[in-house]
């Protein structure tokens, strides 16, 4: 594998950080959108190396964290109805209203942890007498593979495969955050892998409307410090443009093939975000002609609605209004063994990242 060492180079990282210290004259708040970026910032100890004037705010880009409680309860209900539920790994420990998928598995549910939704299609093929549901969670990054699984199932003539969709989109979330009167974001590091699929044309209007620099940024230490440097440089120069730091993976138009697959299977619809609430046109829903593959329509689960835990301030954390440590439950009633909310579960969640890697 290439590019493991190159972007973790001490000298190169230090040179940019030194430069960053030189150009920073004012206080700036920069939000990294993606949970993967949060994880890398904390894991590599980058936050301590930044100038005091730079405050990183951890954004909502952790797919596990923004998946509403309702959806988790629905997946658990499916498991208990005897459906084979397939899921990405970090979803399984997220607490639903009563239990997590992992606990439902221990009670006898047939839960499979997969790396690719296409494996779920194979499972459906191998188990023709059973229903198989893939828990299709994620941002634009996972949407192509999830859409492709539906196309594969359709091509194979499978009638026992469906997906429980919880797909959310980055740009509407950025606008919702910028519109919140309590948030104070000066610049964004956009999620590199989302942009690898979608490109970054849709970020220009946001940058213009809200006068914020948006830097398409990767995930390695060098990517992140360079992304922060580009953001601060623009802010100090009073500019607000979309700039691509992650050129080795991201093209302006994104991945056209992947976008076409998404377009074929999904359309834009309203989505509920855990801790934030419903954001109009902020996610994907299956197109009408694929409704046979929609687990919410196929199974009787639409009645499941549950309130969030009142003690958890995940919404404020996801919008960057509060830091995890500012939560009264952080590290006390809420920790990775007993998470009150999703950001404490996923390694990409801001709360878990702070819990694991920061000095408490």
């Amino acid at each position: 594998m290439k590019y493991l060492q190159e972007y973790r180079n001490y000298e190169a990282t230090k040179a940019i950080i030194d430069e960053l210290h030189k150009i920073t004259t004012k206080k700036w708040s920069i939000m990294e959108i993606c949970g993967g970026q949060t994880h890398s910032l904390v894991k590599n100890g980058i936050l301590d190396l930044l100038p005091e004037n730079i405050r990183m705010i951890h954004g909502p880009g952790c797919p596990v964290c923004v998946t509403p409680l309702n959806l988790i309860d629905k997946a658990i209900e499916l498991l208990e109805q005897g459906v084979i539920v397939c899921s990405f790994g970090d979803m399984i420990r997220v607490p639903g209203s009563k239990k997590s998928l992992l606990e439902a598995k221990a009670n006898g549910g047939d839960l499979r942890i997969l790396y690719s939704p296409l494996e779920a299609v194979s499972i459906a093929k191998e188990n023709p007498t059973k229903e198989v549901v893939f828990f299709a969670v994620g941002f634009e990054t996972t949407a192509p593979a999830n859409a492709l699984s539906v196309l594969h199932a359709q091509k194979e003539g499978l009638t026992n495969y469906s997906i429980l969709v919880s797909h959310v989109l980055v740009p509407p979330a950025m606008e919702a955050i910028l519109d919140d009167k309590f948030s104070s974001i000066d610049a964004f590091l956009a999620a590199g892998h989302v942009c690898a699929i979608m490109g970054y044309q849709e970020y220009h209007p946001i940058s213009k409307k809200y006068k914020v620099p948006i830097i398409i940024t990767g995930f390695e230490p060098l990517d992140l410090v360079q992304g922060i440097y580009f953001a601060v440089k623009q802010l100090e120069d009073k500019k607000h443009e979309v700039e691509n730091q992650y050129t080795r993976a991201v093209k302006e138009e994104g991945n056209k093939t992947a976008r076409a697959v998404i377009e074929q299977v999904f359309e834009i619809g309203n989505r509920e975000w855990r801790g934030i609430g419903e954001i109009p046109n902020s996610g994907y829903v299956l197109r009408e002609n694929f409704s046979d593959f929609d687990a919410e329509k196929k199974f009787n689960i639409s009645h499941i609605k549950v309130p969030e835990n009142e003690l958890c301030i995940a919404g404020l954390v996801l919008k960057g209004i509060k830091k995890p440590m500012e939560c009264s439950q952080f590290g006390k009633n809420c920790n990775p063994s007993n998470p009150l909310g999703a950001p404490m579960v996923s390694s990409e969640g801001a709360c878990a990242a702070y819990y694991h890697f920061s000095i408490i």
Partner: protein
Amino acid sequence: MSQNINSETINLGHGSGGELTRKLIDELIFKTFDNPYLNEKHDGSIVQLEGKIAMSTDSFVISPIFFKGGNIGELAVNGTVNDVAMCGAIPKFLSLAFIIEEGLKLTDFKNIITSIKLAADKSDVQIITGDTKVVERGKGDQIFINTTGIGSVHPNASISSKNIKIGDKIIINNNIAQHGMAIMSQREGLQFESDIVSDTTNLNHLTKKMLDAFGNKIHFFRDPTRGGLGSVLHEIANDCHLGIEISETHIPLEKQVAAACEILGLDPLYVANEGVFIAIVDAKIEQEIIQLMQEDENGKNAVKIGEVVSEHPNKVVLHSIIGGKRIVSPLVGEQLPRIC
């Protein structure tokens, strides 16, 4: 009707205590492990050991039972041998108990037995008592093995977390995360092509050499198996109420293993090892002990990865490659692969 052990699979009869059990034990187990203790064919064995005795037990439930670089049998020997060795002892005797799910192929069982014999010989330990049970299909997962090991504590050894002092150096013998990633690469649904092989091996000869040469200057041994290096260091910091600092740059990690961890979204610090141990030693012997370790095949990559400090008691701080710092916290549950 005569039944011989060449019938294709293990069935409930093999664990019934009757004729089939006797045949299996006589023709396979006693024959393979042939030694005066076992040949007594008594309910247990009587042995002689000098001085303080160390004892350790472990159960092995790994899936798949055959993996690149080994199988559940040699793992069951090495795992317990190493645990006894980490007490500063010279492992001598092992018990060996099987819980077999009916339907296990007899050839597989034979291969496991052969591996156990080879691993025991290599470690210089003898199997002196054992047990075989067979459970119905669906009540186990092919084969589970429990081994218990005993040995005499090395006369010069004084291994205890109480002996760990500020300024002590932390030395590791080999690359981390090999075993866990070898297993992951073969798990159902996760197959990816790699040449990563498990690092399972016996460490007792190396630890003995180290104790022979440095005695009580070695303050602590520990093998980070499940939970990986990160979890074990965290436990040690908590046990001795001191701080630990480690350097990410110095933690030995093979390129291919690092890449596999990246692909699967796992942190190598929390991936299991089977042939890795850390020694926490007096600062004065740092260079000499590393040199001695490097002369052994199981210590070729020996290197200092960190030290014990007075700051941040009970916590492990990692200095990242790029010059940052972070806390190494214990693993909670299993490491879960990330979504994207």
